[in-house]
């Protein structure tokens, strides 16, 4: 591994050469920046991965069952497991999707589950991302370049090859494809994850399309080829949010959607990956109920732990939050990307008072969690080895079977005092090695 670390600079320049960047808007101006790569990998042992794999498959299967239920019978609400306030008041719940059964009954085809490991080695799920989780392309290409920079590292260590992600993704798309071409639908070059959209399209052999390249005709979705012919689309891996997907159904001002796409989807003539309406299941408030979903739908004990979470919505939890405010991290369920996260201990008296006032007024809007004492992981900082907070985004693909990708995106904070690892807030990334034995 030392050899690999020695070549970190070279790997970063190769990443630059391959255009591995992400976009960010600062003062309304688009900037492209490199996603800093740290060559020290996160290593997951074979046994640890077996455990995570079982837990992640279980979790995603339960979440898929939940989505299927919520958009059809709503048994989980009727049976009093999840209060209806957490479903119908969620901004992720789309009434327009009610009664729609997606091809093969799969809602979350690509799930990004964010985990952290505590100092005692326990893994906790921090967040489920079932809408448009991004990030798989980074460790995928980093591995390719690491293998070039330090081949012997990969001879001497027994590491699962993670470069099969595109193959897994393609199989997932093919499984639900309704007899047409696979397309990856990007809002365009100025999207933060544009590199990933184009890279995955290249690697899966899908067509990368923008809003002007698609058209709905007689209940089918078509790709408009330059020669004037139309090609039927069987699956659309959309990388835009639900509300922009179809101006005839959702946000009518959307210029990046495909008019009437939802009608095609309703008729089962195209698979939308991931299904619209998944936001109801990855809402930070719903997170609390995932272990209950596992018990309810799968009749199994949850394998993975949630971070200890409190819902101010419940009186008992609210009292606990008020009593232990300074030791908790508070999250606004409507925010993402590391935004809307505040630590009780870091608030001034005034901030605390106004936060509590808001929380009591809108209890459904917030969750509170115990601050997990993350296991720091080593990174190289200007030639020195230092320890930083990091998380792991595991990717679970649901097609014919539910498969956990033998890798993941490890993001770390470059700031020694920060728990926020998001790339948009200056974080870097690492490769994630899963040992094969």
């Amino acid at each position, binding site marked *: 591994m030392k050899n690999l670390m020695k070549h970190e600079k070279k790997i970063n320049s190769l990443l*630059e*050469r*391959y*255009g591995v960047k992400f976009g960010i808007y600062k003062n309304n101006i688009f900037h492209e920046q490199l996603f800093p790569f740290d060559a020290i990998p996160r290593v997951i042992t074979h046994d640890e991965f077996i455990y995570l794999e079982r837990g992640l498959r279980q979790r995603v299967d339960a979440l898929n069952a939940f989505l299927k239920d919520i958009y059809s019978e709503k048994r989980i609400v009727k049976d009093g497991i999840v209060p209806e306030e957490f479903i119908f008041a969620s901004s992720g719940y789309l009434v327009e999707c009610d009664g729609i059964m997606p091809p093969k009954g799969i809602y979350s085809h690509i799930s990004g589950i964010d985990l952290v490991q505590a100092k005692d080695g326990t893994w906790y799920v921090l967040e489920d991302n079932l809408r448009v989780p991004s990030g798989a392309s980074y460790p995928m290409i980093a591995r390719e370049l690491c293998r070039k920079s330090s081949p012997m590292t990969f001879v001497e260590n027994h590491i699962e090859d993670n470069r099969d992600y595109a193959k897994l993704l393609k199989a997932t798309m093919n499984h639900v494809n309704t007899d047409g*071409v696979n397309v990856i639908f990007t809002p*365009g*070059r100025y999207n933060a994850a*544009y590199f990933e959209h*184009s*890279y995955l*399209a*290249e690697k899966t052999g*899908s*067509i*990368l*399309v*923008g809003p*002007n*390249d698609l058209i709905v005709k007689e209940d089918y979705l078509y*790709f*408009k*080829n*330059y*020669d004037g*012919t139309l*090609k039927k689309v069987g699956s659309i891996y959309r990388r835009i949010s639900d509300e922009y997907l179809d101006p005839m159904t959702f946000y009518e001002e959307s210029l990046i959607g495909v008019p009437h796409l939802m009608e095609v989807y309703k008729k089962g003539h195209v698979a939308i990956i991931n299904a619209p309406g998944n936001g109801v299941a990855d809402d930070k408030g719903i997170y609390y109920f995932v272990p209950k979903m596992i018990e309810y739908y799968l009749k199994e004990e949850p394998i993975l732990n949630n971070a200890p979470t409190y819902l101010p919505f419940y009186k008992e939890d609210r009292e606990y939050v008020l009593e232990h405010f300074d030791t908790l991290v508070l999250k606004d369920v409507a925010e993402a990307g590391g935004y809307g996260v505040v630590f009780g201990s870091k608030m001034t008296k005034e901030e605390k008072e106004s936060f509590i006032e808001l929380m009591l007024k809108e209890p459904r809007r917030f969750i509170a969690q115990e601050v997990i004492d993350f296991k720091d992981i080593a990174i190289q900082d200007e030639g020195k080895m230092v320890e930083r907070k990091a998380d792991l985004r595991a990717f679970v693909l649901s097609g014919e079977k539910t498969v956990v990708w033998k890798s993941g995106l490890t993001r770390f904070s470059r700031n020694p005092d920060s728990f926020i690892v998001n790339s948009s807030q200056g974080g870097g990334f690492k490769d994630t090695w899963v040992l094969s034995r």
Partner: protein
Amino acid sequence: MGIIALDKVDNLLWLGRYSERVYTTIKEFFKGYDLMLDDENFYHIYCKHLQIPNIYKNQKDFIERYVSDKDDMDSIISNLYRAYDNCIVLRNEIGSETMTYLELALSDLEKINDYESFIIDLQIVLDHILAFWACLDDTVASSEVRSIVKLGKRLERMDLYLRLRKDKEDIDKAFRFLEYRINKNTIAFNKEEFIQLKNMMKEEKLPYYQAIEIVERLVD
């Protein structure tokens, strides 16, 4: 017919045009720079030949801004950015490997800040452009994709050579490349105007302005 979105055809064509513009203008700049060593006012003539506004204060200002001023619309770096902007949306069509050479060209051009020996650095940028085209030819399976980029390249070269008032031999050569490419392509072009251009090429005194206008209108 392969699968290419309509707006990608445009990107492919302009990728060809801008990459050629960078390539040819760097080569012209090499010649011009050499002449400037003996005549510090030569840059006035250079601007006139290239039909770019002479907004420069002096020779030093011209050299620095024409090479790497992002705010100068006619600079080499601005044209490379335009090539890059078209390239970045074409990963699917031309592949990551091909794209890397344009990334390298841009990254190396952005790094130029020493105007003592920068001609050597510019040579490297030129090398990357050549590698970019070679990689496109070597790795892109779709003949349509390759052909559209090459058409852009041939159109641009013809346009630039006419603007630069290159000698007849060079222009004839550029025209022959263009003729071969335009007939090989699957995208529509103005056939009548092309015949007119072909006839112009036979004239003893080439009507440069008219020829430039036709080249600009050949492909919409």
